[in-house]
């Protein structure tokens, strides 16, 4: 079976949707040279009417995409840096995502926003290394952050086909992840459906994005010590609360591994919902970035601000003991 990388999975999903549906088109910066490689080869194949090179005008082109979507298109907007999603935060959360409700259902706004570079970039400065997905979840925007090539493919397809705005976060740290894949078996993956990468009995580790791979490594390392279930929500909004509840029904113990800032992050939401509504026999734990973390100065400073496997090992031991 061929090895499919996460980046190539995005390219494949997007290309197939472009082939399938002529209303799909892509816009963003440095499109003509496919700088992020998500659209590698597309300009030649689809031409400049479907691969739109945009000026450095993020708010303008986000609004442009909203308009195109209301006019029947399915724009896919690429953002090269996570903070650009903060720059257009109002246009996505307060405009595109609200227009359907405000029109009483007359229109919908099927835009997909893709950031194939979520998270840390060493030394690019504190303005370039954020993980803003929790805030899109807060504002009720459909938000996905898949961990594997297969899920990236399936969720990008679903995001594009979805009739509402969807933000797709691809962590920088997953872009090179590869997976054996039978292309014929690639499928769309529904929003709000988590995935148990590894079943276990003692503790549920919910890991988000690239941290799924860390969780799996730790689960393997600790297999002599504990049976760890690794739960990957894949979409943070909507979230697979039923899936989490049934995992906790079995394990009763929860550790969350989340690269968000701590306060009001997705990690906190998972812990809160579990504490409120689900079976827990020990206090839950989460491992996150610090409150309001500013990551992106010198590498030495940055690594200590992001969740580590050592922290996960310690937290698992802790919840197993209590």
């Amino acid at each position, binding site marked *: 079976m061929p090895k499919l990388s996460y980046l190539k999975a995005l390219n494949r999903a997007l290309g197939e949707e472009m082939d399938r549906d002529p209303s799909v088109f892509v816009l963003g910066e440095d499109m003509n040279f496919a700088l992020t490689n998500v659209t590698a080869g597309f300009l030649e194949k689809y031409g400049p009417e479907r691969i739109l090179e945009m000026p450095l005008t993020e708010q303008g082109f986000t609004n442009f995409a909203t308009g195109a979507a209301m006019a*029947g298109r399915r724009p896919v907007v690429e953002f090269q840096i996570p903070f650009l999603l903060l720059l257009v935060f109002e246009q996505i959360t*307060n405009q595109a995502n609200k227009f359907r409700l405000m029109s009483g259902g007359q229109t919908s706004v099927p835009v997909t926003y893709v950031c194939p570079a979520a998270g840390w970039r060493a030394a690019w400065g504190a303005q370039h290394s954020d993980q803003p997905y929790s805030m899109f979840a807060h504002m009720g925007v459909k938000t996905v952050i898949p961990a594997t090539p297969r899920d990236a493919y399936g969720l990008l397809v679903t995001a594009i086909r979805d009739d509402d705005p969807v933000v797709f976060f691809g962590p920088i740290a997953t872009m090179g992840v590869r997976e054996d894949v039978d292309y014929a078996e690639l499928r769309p993956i529904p929003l709000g459906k988590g995935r148990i990468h590894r079943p276990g009995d003692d503790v549920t580790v919910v890991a988000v994005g690239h941290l799924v791979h860390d969780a799996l490594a730790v689960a393997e390392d600790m297999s002599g010590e504990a049976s760890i279930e690794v739960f990957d929500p894949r979409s943070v909004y909507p979230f697979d609360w039923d899936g989490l509840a049934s995992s906790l029904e079995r394990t009763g113990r929860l550790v969350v591994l989340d690269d968000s800032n701590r306060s009001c992050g997705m990690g906190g939401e998972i812990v809160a*919902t579990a504490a409120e509504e689900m079976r827990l026999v020990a206090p839950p734990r989460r491992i996150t970035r610090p409150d309001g973390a500013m990551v992106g100065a010198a590498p030495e400073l940055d690594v200590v601000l992001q969740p580590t496997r050592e922290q996960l090992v310690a937290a698992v031991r802790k919840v197993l003991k209590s």
Partner: protein
Amino acid sequence: MTDPVPSERLYRKIRFIRRFEERSVDLVAAGEIASGVHPCIGQEAVGVGVCSTLTHDDIVLSSHRGHGHLLAKGCDPARVMAEMCGRVTGIDKGRGGSFHPSDFSANVYNSTGTVGHGCAIAAGIAWSVARSDTPGRVVVSFFGDGAVTQGALLEGFNLAALWQLPVVYVCENNKYATTLPVQTAVAGSITARGAAFGIPSSTVDGQDVEVVRAATAAAVERARSGGGPSLLEFDTYRYHGHHTFELKARLKYRTEAEIARWKRRDPLDIQAARVPADVRERIDADVERELDDVVAFAVGSPKPDPADALEYMYSDGLRPRAGVASNA
């Protein structure tokens, strides 16, 4: 401008909007319109003149001061008023309200609450329709003088100009953004902003509907024939406060003399002078009768069911979790 529009029809539209707005102010006082309204009284000729050059298929993006645009574009007045009253029979089932309505049946796509941001939304629509099975449609984006200091609007100008999109940008310069006088907000000029992007831009009298119509017709024709965007800045004035809250908070940002001066160029009077008195009387009476029905329909329509508060949020029927856990 395909077929000529008789002066009477333009008069009737202006008269209708004027009286619609006056009645809506009454409905605010009566507690039927919870939001209050931003009346367009004094500015009617712009919406009417502009929309008189458009076909049904042409698309309009409006603003918070949008009732006149909607009525001029051909929305059902009863359903517009019902919308303002938050009724389920409204054009947006009571979810858009007075401030931010849309009506796709009349091709009014949007009236975003973020001042100035409709400009690039319009560009996206225009780009799409120009490449659709039914090209030749034109998009009109209405905004105020306040909007031109919003950077996102200028980003939209750039996109529309780069790709020569079929948009007509209509700036209703009514001299104030809430309390802010345009000359203290806008360095340079409004039309120079358009010109900076290579967009043909002109300042036009907004009180004479026939002048508005002629200027717009040229811009619409240019857009329709692939000649790209235009910016029309209409000189106009609102007689009322920014919003009905000003009926209580008496703000002193302009003089009575200034208001009186503008009223001497009243768009209704200007157009009335072109219509015989007896025709006008008949029209005026018709308008009142129609508005009686409009108000009766709106006020008599049911309010939304609270159980439907999250209806229409998502296309796929996704229901967000409630604010309390079901087991709580």
